[in-house]
């Protein structure tokens, strides 16, 4: 309502004797208050937008990876020197595939085998990660041995960064990771269509790698997912059960006060301390393996519990007493009252607490440090007891990498983490909407 309309409303047919209840001021206060509320939300959202923008603007390029299409000659000499016809898997997997790629690029660029400097420069265009791409071709189709095929292999991360314009080309050549000759080749290859930016599935599916172009968060996603599942499965029931006991059943005495204070206090414990705890209890005492998602999940569970308990208790407290009385009056036992009436009404609050707790757990690195999950893990874990990492860990480790190409990948990994988070939130929001009621 605008000021003007209030004015006219006040002047219209108003007896002079009408008492003054300070409407103008109160409406100003009302508008101010409302504005503050909207402003508060706006501040939150603006910061969110800023953060997201700062991440996305840096990270979206990570989802494209420069690749080279090279006519690879799978010479038997290199792939299967003992000529076992592909029976000796070990020989096949350990063959010197990068050499194939290097030969191919030299061929494409028409470099003379004697020009060693040029050869070295050319070889630097192709990623060492070509090994995996080429191996996959051979392992998938043994007939490729001895033939020439066009294969897409990742370009070196310097090429990738150069193509994406991340290097300042104005600085002198010697201080650039990529020299003028290589730049010229890149342009040449691009014109021939042999060099393209393609969607970087590897970022999502690969395990950790020291090479930016083949590094991915696959293992980390699996690890994070496993840990979140463990946290959810353990902390939600335990947290809710503990809250129910404390809020509904526990006698109000010193001891329960002590527990309450304790739980509040646990929420304030720095997360790394949970790492110390996890190391002492789960790894050293129970003898669970280091770097395992199970241990990580347990540690994060302990860390999340207080958040969930506090939120759940607040939600339980908010359920009106009349509902409780009604249930008890019908001969429901206290247990039935809680599980049939109080708990369902508290679900939205519980879900909020769970989202916040899980999100916290999802983004946490410090406690994982001490139980060995801040680690380089290249192989996918098959059980929760296998070594694995987590998304924030991967971000943390990439953020510390020197190579330029990891900068965008760090942001890319953050984007993946945020998507993960968004999916988690979305499911909770949907659930919450189902349970929300006003009364």
């Amino acid at each position, binding site marked *: 309502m605008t000021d003007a309309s209030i004015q006219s409303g006040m002047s219209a047919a108003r007896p002079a004797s009408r008492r003054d209840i300070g409407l103008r001021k109160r409406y100003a206060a009302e508008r101010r208050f409302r504005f503050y509320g909207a*402003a508060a939300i706006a501040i939150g959202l603006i910061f969110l937008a800023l953060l997201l923008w700062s991440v996305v603007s840096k990270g979206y390029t990570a989802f494209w990876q420069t690749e080279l299409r090279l006519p690879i000659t799978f010479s038997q000499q290199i792939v299967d020197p003992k000529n076992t016809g592909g029976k000796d898997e070990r020989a096949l997997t350990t063959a010197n595939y990068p050499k194939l790629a290097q030969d191919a690029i030299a061929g494409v660029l028409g470099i003379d085998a004697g020009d060693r400097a040029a050869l070295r420069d050319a070889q630097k265009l192709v990623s060492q990660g070509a090994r995996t791409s080429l191996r996959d071709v051979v392992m998938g189709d043994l007939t490729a041995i001895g033939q020439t095929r066009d294969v897409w292999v990742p370009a070196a991360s310097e090429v990738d960064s150069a193509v994406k314009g991340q290097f300042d080309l104005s600085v002198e050549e010697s201080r650039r990771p990529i020299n003028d000759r290589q730049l010229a080749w890149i342009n040449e290859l691009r014109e021939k269509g042999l060099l393209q930016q393609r969607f970087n599935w590897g970022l999502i599916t690969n395990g950790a790698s020291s090479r930016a172009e083949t590094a991915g968060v696959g293992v980390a996603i699996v690890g994070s997912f496993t840990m979140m599942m463990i946290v959810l499965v353990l902390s939600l029931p335990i947290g809710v059960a503990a809250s129910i006991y404390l809020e509904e059943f526990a006698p109000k005495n010193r001891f329960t006060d002590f527990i309450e204070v304790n739980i509040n206090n646990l929420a304030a414990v720095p997360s790394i301390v949970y790492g110390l705890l996890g190391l002492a209890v789960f790894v050293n005492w129970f003898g669970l393996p280091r770097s395992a998602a199970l241990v990580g999940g347990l540690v994060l569970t302990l860390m999340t519990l207080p958040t969930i308990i506090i939120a759940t208790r607040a939600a339980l407290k908010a359920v009106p007493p009349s509902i409780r009385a009604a249930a008890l009056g019908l001969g429901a036992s206290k247990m039935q009252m809680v599980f049939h009436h109080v708990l369902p009404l508290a679900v939205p*609050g519980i879900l909020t607490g769970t989202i916040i707790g899980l999100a916290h757990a999802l983004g946490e690195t410090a406690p994982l440090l001490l139980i060995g999950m801040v680690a380089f893990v290249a192989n996918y874990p098959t059980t929760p007891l296998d070594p694995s990492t987590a998304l924030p860990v991967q971000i943390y480790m990439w953020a510390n990498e020197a190579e330029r190409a990891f900068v965008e990948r760090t942001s890319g990994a953050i984007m993946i983490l945020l998507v993960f988070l968004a999916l988690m939130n979305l499911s909770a929001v949907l659930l919450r909407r189902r349970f929300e009621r006003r009364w």
Partner: protein
Amino acid sequence: MIIVLIGLAGWIAGARRASAFAGREAVGGPRGPKLHSRATYHGAFVFCLAVVPALVLLLVGLAAAPGYVAADVHNHFPASALDADGKVPPLSYELVNQLGRNLDLLPPDERAAASAMTLADLGPVFQRRGIPLAGGTEDYMLPLALRADELSSTLRLGLAGVTIVLAAAGALFGLSRIAVRFRARNNVEFIVRSLLILCSLVAILTTVGIICSMLFEAIEFFRHVSPQSFFFGTVWDPRFAAAGSGGASGQFGLIPLLAGTLYIAAVAMLFAVPTGLLAAVYMAEYADRRVRSVVKPLLEVLAGIPTIVYGFFALITVGPFLRDISAEIAGLATGDYAPFIQGQSILTAGLVMGVMLIPFVSSLSDDIITAVPRSLRDGSLGLGATRSETIKKVVLPAALPGIVSAILLTASRAIGETMIVVLAAGVAARLTINPFEAMTTVTVKIVNQLTGDLEFNSPQTLVAFALGITLFAITLLLNIFALYIVRKYREQYE
């Protein structure tokens, strides 16, 4: 196996339910004695009796079995392989274990054949399957490994048998207890209640665990450094203690860290609480459902962004921004364009941390505000109060206990935060009251002292434990105080 067990017990429970029905039909005429509890409760009771002891046994058994196998293997170790003290070298034992695991990976026929082989024969078999064999493995280990494998599978079988028998016995016993007046529900509820208590004990155990995992090292620290200089020292300068330099060469004053912790947390709360609370009020009272259902989860995203992202945000965006702004302001005011806000400052850390904390306040408070009964709002509106008056004077006071606990949670989070502070306020431990300067917190130092090159049993590292336990004690006191305040001002509605 456990699944089978539960299925079994569930089946028994079902059976019992049926018989309970039958019993009621027979005994209870139209006005005969009523069954005390519903048949499902009787079923659940039987289920509990069957499952709980069996499960406990199973867990104990599973935990004990490897120990038994180990003991057995130890006993059969050839004397030649024992070490000087006549003990089994742990690594040889590990090799046996590994061999056992490797054997498990072989297909049954090959494994059967393995008992007749020597290691030399076995080597190629493993190699063909790509199973690496440790270099130190010796021939005498093979029979041991086979023996251990066998023993553990027998044990497992036996355990399964005993568990099933116990489950059945439990079920039978449960069945025998069932009578019309038997209080099955109360018993089941007792069990559920015990479970609930167990769950709330997890919190206590965590606390005990945390204290235990820090106490010894903290004591060790205080052997090097006097508590007095730690608690009352005003200089934090632990120095680097690497190889050889030994001894406590630095100063470990807690005060600057503590001051920084409280200062930064306070700034963060000063930003987060009003913003979050106002946002919550707006969402709960003004925004329509659709807006709220979009805005709330969006704000919650803020809580989930990894703190390192905030850290870099503070470092790269907010810090320089504030510094440049302050330079402008100083320039306009005094003509000297020297920034009075440093790139790293308490203000930056507090602000960015505050952003992260917004959803803690807003989401929790929103739920609590929404739960305030409508009739209270009607009462106030009906008296001619504006909405904001209603909110400020009726709704918020009614929601106060809940809001206070939300704020407490937020404060806790603020105190425990590390990464943001590292990047936004730095690691320099100083005492200052100027919010535009750098300061650091206890948690930052805990992390740093634990993860560096520092020698791990030097006071430089051990101080982390002392810091941890001190922080723990301080927040504990704060929480006790807060509980007292909440108790005193709690108001009940409805």
